[in-house]
Structure formats: C-alpha cells, structure tokens
C-alpha cells in the first residue's frame, strides 16, 4: 500500500448528524449501525458525541462521522455548534409519538439555519417494531419528506435491525455521488471554514490539499 501519504486510510469523509426529540432512539440507531448491538434503556445523551464507521461505496472507502446529539431542546444552542458543518442530516421521530413527529418542523428550521444549503436530509421513523402502538402513519413521513425535499424517508427498527444500515448506506452513497458530481463544493468550503479541526470534513481528502492552502 501507499505509505507516502499519511492519511490514506479513507477516500471520503462525511459528517452525518442525527437530530430529533429526546427519547426517539437516536443513540440506539447509531449503536445498531456502529456496533451491531441493541441496548435497551440506553442512557440519555447529554451534549454530543460522534463515532466513525467505514464503508465501501463504489469501490471507494467512505468514512462516516456520525454525530449523536442530545434531544433536549434547550441544549440545542450547544449542539448546533457541532452540526453546522454537516454533510448529511438524519431527522428522527418515533412512530409511536405524535409530538416527536410534529417537532420535526422545528428541527428542520434549525437545519436550514445552521447547515449548508445542499446538506442531504433523510427522515427516519424509529421504533418500527412497535407497530401496535403506531400513531404516525407511513404517509405522514412520506409527506414530510416530499415537503422538505429530503433524499428519502425510511422506517427503522434498531431493536429488530431493520433498515438501519440501509439508511446510512443510502446516505453515504448519495453523499459520495453528489460529491463526485461536484455539487458539494460549497459545503466543502464551508466545512473547512467552520471546522478547523485537523480532520477536515466534507469530502475527498486529497482535494482539500489542492483547494485549500494547508
């Protein structure tokens, strides 16, 4: 393998952020995808944290930096600072909780204020295994997706491992292709500006070297 480039462990890096009301199961979705496990009674998330997951899309190594956020509304000002440079947003609601569905409008407002305009959005209805307690219908989710021009709507169950991986794969694939098509240049630059960490976020690593001066 090529040892000259110190950072050749991936070709793309995308930042994906999960948001939505508290208790909809954001952490469970992340845990399922990241570790393949389901922990019932996952502790509440305070603040923000992220995990990395590597995938291969179209033969390229794509790293997803998946950000899990606390759903408590009043802590948003803190969490926002970490998701403003996101490439993808997963908006979550609980299919058994009307309130969490209705709150999505506010979360979407947040996204439009703090994320790049071309951020890829996905809406996810969680806890799909609780069919008997369903309150939010599939059509409601679809409607929301269409109304806000989101990439896709999908219902998942972290407990039964339904559609969780699919959601992230779909997102990764779209982000990569969008990036390849050069559509995300803007957000890339935004990503560099706002995220001056040593791990630049938002696309092809090598391209950073040429388009930005360090």
């Amino acid at each position: 393998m090529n040892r000259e480039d110190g950072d050749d462990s991936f070709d793309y890096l995308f930042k994906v952020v999960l948001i939505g009301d508290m208790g909809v199961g954001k952490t469970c979705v992340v845990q399922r995808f990241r570790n393949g496990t389901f922990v019932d009674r996952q502790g509440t998330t305070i603040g923000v944290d992220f995990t990395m997951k590597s995938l291969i899309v179209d033969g390229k190594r794509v790293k997803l930096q998946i950000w899990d956020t606390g759903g408590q509304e009043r802590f948003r000002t803190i969490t926002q600072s970490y998701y403003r440079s996101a490439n993808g947003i997963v908006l979550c609601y609980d299919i058994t909780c009307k309130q969490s569905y209705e709150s999505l409008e506010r979360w979407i407002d947040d996204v439009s204020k703090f994320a790049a305009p071309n951020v890829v959005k996905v809406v996810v209805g969680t806890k799909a295994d609780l069919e008997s307690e369903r309150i939010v219908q599939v059509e409601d989710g679809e409607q929301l997706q269409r109304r806000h021009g989101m990439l896709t709507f999908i219902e998942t169950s972290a407990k039964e491992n339904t559609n969780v991986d699919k959601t992230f794969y779909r997102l990764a694939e779209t982000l990569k292709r969008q990036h390849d098509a050069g559509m995300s240049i803007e957000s890339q630059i935004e990503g560099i500006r706002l995220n001056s960490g040593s791990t630049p976020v938002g696309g092809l690593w090598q391209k950073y070297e040429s388009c930005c001066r360090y």
Partner: protein
Amino acid sequence: MKRARGIVALRIPGVSARLTDDGDDQPTDEYIPGTLAIVEKATGVFIEWTPQGEDECGWVLADEDSGHTIPSLSPKPVDASSSSSLPSSGPLSPHSRLRFSVDVNDLSSFKNVEPKKGKKGHPCIRLIAKDGTNYVPLYFLTQSTKDFIDVLQRYVTLRRSAREHQLVLVVDEKAEALAQSLSTLDQNGDIMGRFMHNPYATAMTGLSKITTFVQDQVIPAILDSDAVSQEEKIRAMRELRTETDDTRLKISREADFEVVTQLELPPRPDIFRESPVTQAVWSSFKHSDGSFDQAKSHHMMMNVFRGGVETELRKEAWKYLLGYYEWSKTPAENEKKRAKLEKDYLRMKGQWTSISEDQESRFAKYVVRKALVEKDVARTDRTLKFFAGDDNPNLAMLHNVLMTYCMYDFDLGYVQGMSDFCSPLLYVMGNECDAFWCFVGFMQRVHANFEKDQTAIKVQLNQLRDLLMIVNPKLANYLESHDSDDMYFCFRWLIVWFKREFSFEDTCKLWEVLWTCQPCPNFLLLICAATLDRQTETIIENKFGLTEILKHVNDLSMHHDLDEMLTSAEAIFHQLSASQDKLPMHICEHLALGDKSVVGTPSGDEDDE
C-alpha cells in the same frame, strides 16, 4: 473475499482490556483477557484487539460475507440497493463491544504507561486515534510492550513526546515536511526571524499587510513546529489578534492583559486526600444535644471536603449538606421539620397523582411533561442493581420524585439531566420523601443549569476559559486557536456535575465534596481546569482540532482518577489563592477569592449567623 484475512505481523495473547465498570453498585476494575494483533490487509494495516473466546482470526471476513454489522472499523463492501433488511446479529459476548480494529493510519498517538518502579502492575497501552477516539486501555500481562512498539514502527514513525514521557506520537510526515519548508522560508526572508524575535513590533510595522497570509498559513504552521518557544507562539497569536482591533489593543496594553497571560503562579503544593469521615468523627462535631457546633463547622466541612463521608454515614450527612436538615438544630427539631416536609411532599404528590385520564386529555402541557419523565426514568442508571429489572419499585419512586418536583417547580418542569441528579439521592435515601427534599436542596444549587436560556452554563464555560487562561495559558491559547475556546466540550461535565464521567460511587464522593463549598464555592470549575490541565500534552501533541478535542474529552469518561482530580484542583486553588492580589478581578470573583463570608460557612443553613 478472502483478501480480508490478511497477514498477521504480530500476535500477542495475554493482552487484557481493562474495564472500569460504570454500571455496578460496587466499583469493579475488571481485566478482560484477549489478544492483540497487527494485521496487514489489502485495505491497510490494522491494530486489532479481540476478547478471548471470540473468533479473532478472520472475523472481518465473516463480517464481510454476511453483511453483519459488528464492532469494527474495517471497511466493508456496501451494496446500498440490496441491503433492505439485514439479518440481525447473533448473540455477542458481553465484551464484544470492546473489540476493536484500528487502521494504523488513523492512529494519532498512544499512551504507554509502565508500572511504577517497585510496584506491582502491568505495562499499559492506550491508543488514541486522529479523530480523538480513545480506545480501551490494554494491559500487557505476559510480556513488555516492546514487541508491539517494534512491529508498529515498521508501519509508522513514532516519536516519544518530549513534554510528556508517557505519550508516544505517530509522526505525520506531511507536517514534518511543512516544518522544514518553514525553516527555509525563515532563512530566505528573515521575516520569520524578525517575527519571532519581536513579533509585536514586526506585526505593527511591517506585517500588517500580510497579516491574512500570516494568520492563515504561517501561524498554524508555527504552532505545529517545535522551533519556537510556547510563550512566543502564544504572544504571536495574541499580538496578531489585537493588531486587527484597535480597541482591544489599547486594553491589552493598558490593562493587565499582558501581565495576566504571563502571570507566574507559585508552584502547586502537594495535596493529599484523607480517609472518609466516620460516624465517630462526624459525631465529634456535635454538641451533646445532637446539634452541630458552629465553632467547629469550618473544621468539619474541611474534613468532608478532604475525604468525603463513609458510605453508611451518607444517609444522614447528605441531608445536612443539602440543606434539608439544619446544622444548628437538634435531631428532634430536624425530625419535626422532616414530619412537616413529608406532609408537604405528600400534598404535592397528590396534586399530580389525582389527575384523571379525562383531565389529562385537556392538559397537554402536563402530559408532555409526564412523558418526558417516563422516558428518562426508564433509562436512568439502569445498569445499577438498584434500578435494574422490570417493575422495579425504585423506578416508580424515581418517577414519583421527579413528577412531584414538576409540581414543586412547574416553571422549570423536567429537563434532561435532572434524573441524573436525582438517582444517587434516591439510592442513598431509600425513600421518596427524603430523596425529594434532598433533590430540592441540590436543585437550588444547579437550577440555573436547566433554565431555558442556558445562560448559566455559558457563563460557567466562560469562567472556565478565563481560569484556564491563568492556570494553563498554553492550553487556553491552543483551544482558542482551534475554535474550542467556547469550551462546549465541557458541557456534559458541568451540566450534571461529572455524573457521566465517573462510576456511581465516585460520583457520590465527588458530589459530597462539592456540596461543602470548600475551599471556594466554584470548586467544580477548578476540577474542570485540573482535568483539562492533565490533558494538555495529549491535546496539543496530537494536534487535536475542534471535533477531536470533543471526542477525546468524551472518551475520558470512566477513565478519570477522582482523587487525583480533587488534589490537583485543590492545588490549583492554593496557587491562585496565594497570588490573589495579582489576579484579575473577574478571576477572584469566579472563585469568590478574598470573600471571607463564604469560607467556613456551611451553606443552606437558614439559621446561620
């Protein structure tokens, strides 16, 4: 897909992960035996650790074949279109989640801790990734870490940190190359030479036009290079910043800005923790009638501060520390107060338990609040035996206390994090009424953390930054230059008083120390500063940025040493206290230094003189 198996370059059995269990009531330090390996694969070279009894060889392969999602950083093929529903993973051992595989190219550094001379113990390695992730500490039980490090060196260049001996850095060849090109620039242009010699004058006279260039390109590079002293770097950063802003420049010249950043604090004294206060010691501070001797109150608070209290004493001591019982009253008087408050509790509890379902249908605000409490109670400290299992009556008690608190303070209601504060109180008190009134006392101190505008948290974060500027300007400046001086990465520490960072037992110990308000009311901030201080070299030498700092700080959870944090925080307090006349006013205010009224007065005591 046999390519995934790879060539095993090194395999060391007898490398155990150490789990600091956060769940159990009893603190357990558990070693989990396993195997450490360095494996060359088509996709890269990986450092992998697998717990014993699990298929270590080719487990990535199995993963790839079946499409299972298992804890692995290894890339795997993806076919997004066909993966509609993946089979659920088979049963994993309880330690599976600790298994990891990290690409050597993702490695930023590792801590290599050798046991102290003459002491028992095993050498330990803790890998730190470029994204800030800290992997589980690995203990080499049967051999030294030498083989591992030797083999690793085949793939990456390693350098031991000059500033922190335990830290071994993976050298980034690109950064080295940049440092070299900088020194060339230095020789040719002499700008850098002058800049370094007297950055302020140079910036003011000649550099203003190319400030942008300097800020964007040269400064970050300088910060990364070892060529200049840290103080120069900090000053250079500051000067350039002030140079762009006349007003600030004035302030920085005239006021104590410069003085402050260069303030030399006296050396940190050695501080030792003491053993927990026993029942006998506790009683020795009481009069014969059972009330506390006010003349000895400072002495007693210092005792609690230095060692906490014995587990058996908590049930009594916490009631006083949280202002539920009054120090100056006799047990009989306090018992009388308790009886009155119990009635009060039952009255408020009745206010919500009597709401019928029919009423609920027209009481949306209440229903939302109840749902929040229910959601959080179901997932608060459930790994603790005390709250484990379905239909655990303790869960109902936690629910009742929190719901009743909603009636007690309907304006605040329930906010996430409150259940974290409530759970240890219920655990120690064992009944709703006492837990509730202790909770009320605790909430008086932390109420502002949960208020809607979140000002209080931001104020604390700013205060922490100010403190760090004095205590550790090097780190403070590093954070500032990496967009992290809002200190948001300390949010979780402050909002729930380190509840998520420590085991349950250590949390109890920390809290009772903090409740004493010794040696100053904002001691929590000093603990934060001490904790960050300890991470200085790790953060700077790994060149962590905004996200990596957050990740690193998050991953420290359950790996802190409480006694060390407390002693360092106290040592810092003494440092600051000794220099109080030189400290800027706002720092003294943050810590209430020189404010004699707070010292030695047990708080929450209504009848205090």
